[in-house]
């Protein structure tokens, strides 16, 4: 039994859960909705502290999104927390109609982004950002650490419409930042290689950068937590300063950061070679995150090689 207790304690120390609890303390208009899975998305602590403002809706994503919309229509700030795949795929029409037409201020939090789970296709949310970016009025955030998640919660509360934010379990080391905000944060300055990245992709790129720096290669790195609205000018300006930029994301090539930047560069006439380092147009393999990264060429060594390659793979 001791092991179970420890597991529970670990769950309760989760960063997103702690931030959500804190938000609930600060704002009495927050209502959190679960569609089962509350224990896996780190919201039990919030539920314990605010049982009157916690709705366990069970496995019913479509209804849950609708109820959240109704709560917002009576002045609440609803936060729906479940797995990204179910939130964005099962309830897409509900998100589009009940939240994005108003638009209605609701925060959707999708756990297990990209390859952070071994359950291939069914639980790996590799297309969630694309789906959510396609909706008018939707704000989309892919955090790399607790700093981003905290800023994302604030941005959601201020946004006049729905927000989709990815979240993950467990503690990610906070990125070392030079300057910036949710739109664009400069992580490193350099001239011999360049990364632009989002979400956990920024953690992966930071690891590759560390390898390169150890070999004396100077690397620039821009982290982009907010994918919509996109800081297109800042991104184009960053990319224009380099011959080759590697875009790292925990998402498919279709409709993620890579295509967003490519569009921003094309519209501004910036001719920079941009390489995608993320999930190809196929279902990622099963397994631990390190294994999948290795298979997909997203491990630090592969990314470092990509960033210094003279031509594309």
């Amino acid at each position, binding site marked *: 039994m001791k092991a179970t207790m420890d597991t529970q304690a670990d769950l309760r120390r989760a960063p997103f859960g702690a931030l959500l609890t804190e938000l609930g303390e600060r704002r009495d208009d927050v209502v959190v909705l679960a569609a089962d899975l509350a224990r896996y998305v780190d919201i039990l602590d919030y539920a314990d502290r605010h049982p009157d403002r916690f709705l366990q809706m*069970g496995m019913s994503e479509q209804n849950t*999104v*609708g109820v959240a919309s109704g*709560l*917002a*229509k009576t002045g*609440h700030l609803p936060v729906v927390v479940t797995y990204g795949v179910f939130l964005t795929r099962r309830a897409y029409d509900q998100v589009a*109609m*009940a939240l994005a037409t108003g638009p209605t201020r609701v925060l959707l939090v999708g756990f297990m982004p990209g390859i952070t789970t071994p359950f291939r296709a069914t639980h790996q949310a590799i297309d969630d950002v694309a789906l959510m970016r396609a909706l008018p009025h939707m704000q989309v955030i892919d955090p790399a650490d607790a700093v981003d998640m905290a800023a994302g919660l604030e941005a959601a509360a201020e946004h006049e419409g729905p927000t989709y934010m990815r979240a993950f379990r467990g503690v990610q080391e906070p990125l070392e930042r030079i300057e910036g905000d949710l739109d664009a944060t400069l992580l490193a300055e350099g001239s011999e290689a360049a990364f632009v990245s989002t979400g956990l992709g920024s953690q992966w790129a930071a690891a590759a950068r560390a390898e390169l720096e150890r070999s004396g290669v100077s690397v620039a790195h821009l982290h982009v937590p907010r994918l919509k609205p996109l800081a297109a000018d800042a991104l184009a300006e960053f990319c224009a300063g380099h011959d080759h930029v590697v875009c790292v994301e925990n998402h498919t090539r279709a409709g993620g950061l890579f295509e967003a930047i490519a569009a921003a560069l094309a519209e501004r006439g910036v001719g920079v070679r941009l390489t995608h380092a993320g999930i190809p147009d196929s279902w990622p393999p099963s397994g631990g995150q390190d294994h999948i990264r290795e298979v997909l060429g997203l491990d630090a060594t592969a990314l470092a090689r990509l960033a210094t390659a003279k031509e594309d793979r």
Partner: protein
Amino acid sequence: MTEALEDRARALRAQAVWIAAGRGQGYIGQALGTADLMACLFFDEGRRFDGDDPDRDRFVLSPGHYALSLYAVLAEQGRLPIELLRTYGMDGSDIEESPLEGLTGFEITGGSLAQGLSQALGIALGKELRGDGGTVFCLISDGELQEGQTWEAVLAAASRAPSNLVVLLDRNGRQVDGPTEDINPLEPVADKLVAFGLATRVLDGHDVAAIQEGLEWAEAQDGPAILVCETELGHGVDAIRDAAYPHYVRADPEFWEDATRRLDSEVSA
């Protein structure tokens, strides 16, 4: 009061036909079929839907195509000018055949079906959380019972059990491709709703006294209640009721003039 509401229902039918006649087409069958329900809901004493008082009642229209039903109410209440309403469905008009939320009277975007009940439940729970008064009335259509989300919402409504939620089910028995019982049978509807845990009552959706009594009964329940209102598409205008496809009627001006004349004579009689 019952007679006054029957007059009001006739007036709503006349308004709906007059609005649809502007462009010569529209979802008139539903507007005529629900006129008695809308008359009782909006024109009986004691309910207030307009303004921004948090204690006001709320009306959630789940099937957006029924907008014409609500436009007739808004015309009759004087909340939107009839000249504007008569641009129903025209290019560039705000009076869309299935509008988005935000237009006067429209709390939700209802055109993609079966999304209303969940949002009505959310509004009801939101009111309870805040301690606000008022009842949430949600109109759903029987075709929406074929969508899974309706049953997710019914399940949740029964367990959450807000006492401020009343559902009106328009049981007209028809959907785009034919009778509901031929397409994907729904019966026994009332038994299913009871089994899910909703206080359920079946009534004649064209009997104003029965509707009045049903609404009072529903509002008095401790938890959510649903009125299964048996209606007829196009009720009150034989030519529309008997049309091959009463859901959506497209006709020449003479047709609408004739319907308007008949309804006007009933209203003034």
